[in-house]
Each structure stands twice: as structure tokens, then as C-alpha cells.
């Protein structure tokens, strides 16, 4: 088993198998069936990776982050022989084909319907610090999910996808490409779990969600990996004219995770909700970076990230609202709340605004609070054990986020996962 939590970064750059040309070539060779543009895109991404310098210690984008814990250096790049797909799509929606919907695993779509992915190289990563990892995801991605919904089509039921993390010592790159054409409406729920409780592996999920004019996209990510794993979530969401994107990430598992979220209100009237929930136990780390970027007038974005931290767990939140000069009448909000349930738990919160337009409503707020002792006493005085009381208070604290989903079915799904967190 690989030990990730050694706190040392001495060796991270000395052996970088991802930069090894023969390994990349071998990977590309195994995927020679892919279209030429894909091979070019991989190579270009890989070269960017090699040319890109690693973030240095003083990089603001990694402030408060124990970066070494998130290093990939102990892991081998994927290769065709040990990287079998373990993702399952569950959709009860009928007539997908008749409606012209493309739904499939990343490699399947690349093989059978590659034109859907032709714009892949235009879909950028969030680049909020883990830029190199995103280049790797572009170069080495063999997994993930593609959902393309044509103009005017509504999918009534959520598309559920379950991804199984790779075996011990492996890293796996997933791409999620969710593109809704004009007026389309769809919900995608992805769950990442581990094959067992021991294997230490890395999952990198790089998602692009694009809602074209008047489209409504909902994307839920549930990360429930085992406590030896690492997780990268590198997401870019883009809402076009009068479109809505609602995203929620629930992070329960992994030893350490870094999630970067770039949300772009690209055209007039775009609306984006960014929701995040994390529950930390043991020494879990949740490193969260967000950027709400307003490029056009009359947009709205609202971010609510809540972290409940037990034991020695730690959360870092750093978010920026950026409103460009032309994006007048923007409403943009950013709230990060942390509940510390143990004196050893830790939260750092760095909210920020960068506003170039003059007629906007923007606010940011962050709180780091401990559990209210009187509130806890109230629960205990009813015969509720301390562990159950904490579970209730955490769920109560997080409930505000679940309500913002405005979908009880999805909220219940996430509540089920939360229950699991406390039964372990």
C-alpha cells in the first residue's frame, strides 16, 4: 500500500513517471484506435504538462494546502492493460436514442460517436492551482462519462453513474463531458467509490458542464472513496444565455481531496448555483478552490460550501468572485461555513471579490464555528448519545445546502450517503 500521508515533498519531483516519454507513448499506442485529433490533443496536453512548472510553495493558489499529501508521484500512469473500465451507467430514461441523446462511457463514445467530442480541446480546466493534474487528465483520460442532450430535449429522470476507483497504487483520470444544447434539461449524478477499504489509489475527475441558451443542467458528484485514496475534482461549468447550472459536490471519503470549481456565467442572464458539502473524520483533508466568473450582464451565481469537521480533519476554502467590467447587474454570492466538532479539527477560509463592474450585488462571507455547547447539552439531555447528537447536528448544519438543491429526491439520495458516513 502506498503511503500518501508522509508530509514530505522531497521526492515528489525527482521521479515523475507521468513525464516519461516511453510510458506516454505506450499509452498512446494502446489507444491508436482513437481519432487523430484526440491523439493530437493528448500529446499536446502531455507536452503542456511537461513544460508547466509545478506550483511552488508560495503559490497563493495552494495557500494552507499540505500539497505533498496530494502528490501523484507514488502512482503509476494508467496503461491499457491495467485500466479496465469499472463504471456503470444507470438510466431509466426511455427513448434516449430516438431523442438524439448521446450517453456513454468516455471511451465508448470516443469509439462509436467521436464527433460529439470533437470540441474537447476547447473545454478548459478550472486551472485554480492543479493545472498540471488537469493536463494529465487531458493526456491520460480513458474513463468517464459523456452526456450530450440535443436542443429542446428534457430528460425527466436523473442519469446515475457509479465509478469504481482503480486498484492499489493506480491513478485514473475520468472526464465528464455534459453538454446541453439550447433549451435542454438533464440531471447527472456521479458517485465515486472504492473497490474495497484498503486500496490506495488516486481518482481524478475532470468535468466540463456546458448549458447552452435556456438549458438547465444539474450535476451531482458524490465522492465516497476509502480513506486511503486521494481525489481530484477539477470542474468547469459554463452557463450561456438565460441558462441555469446547478452543481453539488458531496465529499465524504478519501484521505485527501482537492476540488477546483470554475463557474462561468458566460452570457447574459446565466444562473449558477454551486453547492458543496463535506464531512471530515480522522485526518481527512478537503482542499477547495472556487472561482465564479461573470463575463456578461444580469447573471447570478450563488455558492454555498459547508464543511463539518470531526476529529483532526481539515478543510481549506479559497474562493473568488470575479465580475468583469461588462457584467453589470450581476448578483454573486459566496458563503463558506465550517463547523468544527473537535478541538483538533481545522478550517481555513479565504473568500474574495474582484469586481470591475460598478452596478452589481456581490457578497461573500465565511464562518468557522464550533458546536454550540448548550445545543449539544440539549440533545444529550434527551438521552441522545454524543455520537448521534453530532450526527444530527452535522446533518442539520448541512441541510441548508440540500434544500438548495430544490429536489427532494436528490437531497434524499445525498442524505443516504451521509448516513453511511456516520455508520462507519
Amino acid at each position, binding site marked *: 500500500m502506498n503511503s500518501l500521508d508522509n508530509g514530505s515533498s522531497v521526492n515528489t519531483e525527482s521521479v515523475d513517471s507521468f513525464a516519461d516519454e516511453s510510458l506516454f507513448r505506450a499509452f498512446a499506442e494502446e489507444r491508436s484506435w482513437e481519432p487523430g485529433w484526440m491523439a493530437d490533443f493528448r500529446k499536446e496536453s502531455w507536452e503542456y504538462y511537461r513544460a508547466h512548472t509545478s506550483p511552488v510553495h508560495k503559490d497563493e493558489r495552494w495557500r494552507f494546502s499540505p500539497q505533498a499529501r496530494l502528490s501523484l508521484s507514488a502512482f503509476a500512469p494508467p496503461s491499457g492493460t491495467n485500466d479496465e473500465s469499472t463504471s456503470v451507467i444507470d438510466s431509466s430514461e426511455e427513448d434516449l436514442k430516438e431523442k438524439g441523446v448521446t450517453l456513454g462511457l468516455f471511451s465508448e463514445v470516443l469509439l462509436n460517436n467521436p464527433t460529439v467530442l470533437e470540441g474537447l480541446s476547447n473545454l478548459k480546466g478550472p486551472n485554480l492551482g492543479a493545472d498540471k493534474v488537469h493536463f494529465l487528465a487531458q493526456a491520460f483520460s480513458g474513463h468517464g462519462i459523456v452526456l450530450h442532450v440535443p436542443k429542446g430535449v428534457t430528460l425527466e429522470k436523473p442519469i446515475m453513474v457509479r465509478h469504481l476507483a482503480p486498484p492499489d497504487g493506480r491513478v485514473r483520470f475520468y472526464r465528464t463531458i455534459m453538454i446541453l444544447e439550447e433549451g435542454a434539461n438533464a440531471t447527472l449524478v456521479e458517485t465515486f467509490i472504492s473497490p474495497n477499504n484498503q486500496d490506495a489509489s488516486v481518482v481524478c475527475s475532470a468535468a466540463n458542464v456546458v448549458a447552452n441558451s435556456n438549458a438547465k443542467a444539474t450535476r451531482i458528484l458524490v465522492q465516497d472513496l476509502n480513506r486511503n485514496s486521494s481525489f481530484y475534482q477539477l470542474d468547469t461549468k459554463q452557463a450561456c444565455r438565460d441558462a441555469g447550472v446547478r452543481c453539488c459536490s458531496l465529499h465524504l471519503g478519501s484521505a485527501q481531496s482537492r476540488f477546483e470549481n470554475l463557474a462561468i456565467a458566460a452570457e447574459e442572464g446565466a444562473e449558477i448555483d454551486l453547492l458543496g458539502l463535506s464531512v471530515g473524520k480522522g485526518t481527512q483533508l478537503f482542499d477547495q478552490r472556487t472561482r465564479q466568473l461573470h463575463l456578461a450582464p444580469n447573471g447570478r451565481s450563488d455558492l454555498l460550501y459547508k464543511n463539518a469537521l470531526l476529529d483532526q480533519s481539515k478543510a481549506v476554502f479559497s474562493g473568488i468572485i470575479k465580475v468583469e467590467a461588462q457584467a453589470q447587474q450581476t448578483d454573486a454570492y459566496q458563503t463558506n461555513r465550517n463547523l468544527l466538532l473537535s478541538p483538533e479539527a481545522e478550517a481555513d477560509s479565504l473568500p474574495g471579490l474582484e469586481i470591475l463592474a460598478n452596478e452589481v450585488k456581490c457578497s461573500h462571507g465565511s464562518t468557522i464555528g464550533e458546536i454550540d455547547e448548550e445545543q449539544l447539552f440539549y*440533545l444529550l439531555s*434527551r438521552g441522545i448519545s*454524543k455520537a448521534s447528537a453530532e450526527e444530527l447536528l452535522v*446533518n442539520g448544519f448541512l*441541510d441548508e445546502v440540500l434544500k438548495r438543491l430544490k429536489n427532494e429526491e436528490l437531497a434524499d439520495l445525498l442524505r443516504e450517503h451521509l448516513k453511511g458516513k456516520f455508520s462507519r
Partner: protein
Amino acid sequence: MNYLEIKDLRAQIEDKEILRGLNLTIPKGEVHAIMGPNGSGKSTLSKVLAGHEDYEVTSGSAILDGEEILGMKPDAISRLGLFLAFQYPLEVPGVSIANFIRAALQGRLAENETIDAVGYYKDLYGCMDELGIDRKFTSRSVNEGFSGGEKKRCEILQMAMLKPKYCILDETDSGLDIDALKIVAKGVNQMRNPDRGILVITHYQRLLEYIIPDKVHVMWEGGIALTGGKELALELEAKGYDWVREELVA
């Protein structure tokens, strides 16, 4: 075995002694009232008995049906059968009343047992109807945005659902109008039975017109200064607490 028996109880907070050798016995089947001026230690007594960790017990004992409860954790005391209705019930955002009470009942079961949901809701709705609490409240967060009367009714609802052996009602009448007071009193009276002891803590006699006590105790400077029948409450109301001071000096 059928007593909550408090002997020579001394307790302090931040080195300030509040309870100074208090003696009190509440047998099952009886309702006792404690009256006393502000600062006499009434609320401290209720919190110490419920196991609040801010208070340090320096001597004495509190025996509930043969078991010492001083030093026990609040949840263990509750499971043993003591219920404290709070003077200021706390708001618990995001936790519904139904889930809250269910967790409390679940805490009383063995680990492999679970509550029968159908029976639970039947009981819950029954109690809510009795107390005039709208059934919609089951999904509302505990005490969040409740009026004073709603909060106190919610306390009585919890008490009715948990069926404790001993109940302590800490100034349950504070902040209630007469209609709310009557409803709360009715709820308490319905819980009077030979297997349950009830201690009503109040500043005013008014509540005791609706919950008729078997005994009235007057608390003074951290101890029980006077004990009498229900008429003692009326006497106090008429003469005021200064009368107690004069009695004690005399």
C-alpha cells in the same frame, strides 16, 4: 427505590457556590414545586441534576431510584429516566422535531433494535393533537422560529413521548400567555401518575393554579428554606419573597 432523593447537594460554577447543601426528596406519584427569587439557584439545581458539565458538584448525592446520577453524563441520566424541560429551549436548525424525538427514543433501545415507524408516528401525532400542536410541526426544525408558547409545548411533547420517571420543569411558565399556560399545564397534568415524580420550578404562583402541587418548597440562597402544602404558594404570592427573608432571620 421510588424516589429522587437529593442530599446535601453543593455545586459551584467558576468557584461561585450556588447550591449550598440542598436537601429534597421527590417521591413517585407526587408533584412538587420549587419557588424562589431570581438567583436562589433554581435553574442551577435543574442543570446539575441533568448533568450539565459547567457546574462542579463539590459534595452531596442525587439518587434516582437507587442510582447515583451526580457525575453521570447527561445522556445517561436522561436514559435513566430524568427529563428536564428547559426554561429556554434551544433551536436546532436543520433537525426536524420528528427526527429529534426519534433519535431520543432510539437512544433508549439496544443497538440492534430500531423504532417501528408506524407506531412512532401514531404516538407522536397523538401527543401533538393533545397539546394542540399542528402536525406540520413534525418536519419543522426543533424550536427554530417558534413562539415562546410553541417552544414550551414542544418541551412537553418531548416529555410525553419519552415517558420519564421524573420530570423537572424549569420555569415552563415564563413567557407564556394564559392560553398557552393552560395547554402546557394540561399536558403536565396528563402525565401525573403513580409511577412518575414531577418537580415544577417557578417564580410565580400562577402556574400552580393549573398544576396543583402536593408540596411547595421555597428555595433561598442555594437551599430549601421552607416546605409546605400548596397553600404556601399563595402565601408567598401574597407576602412576597421578603417575607421569607424575615422568616429566616426570625
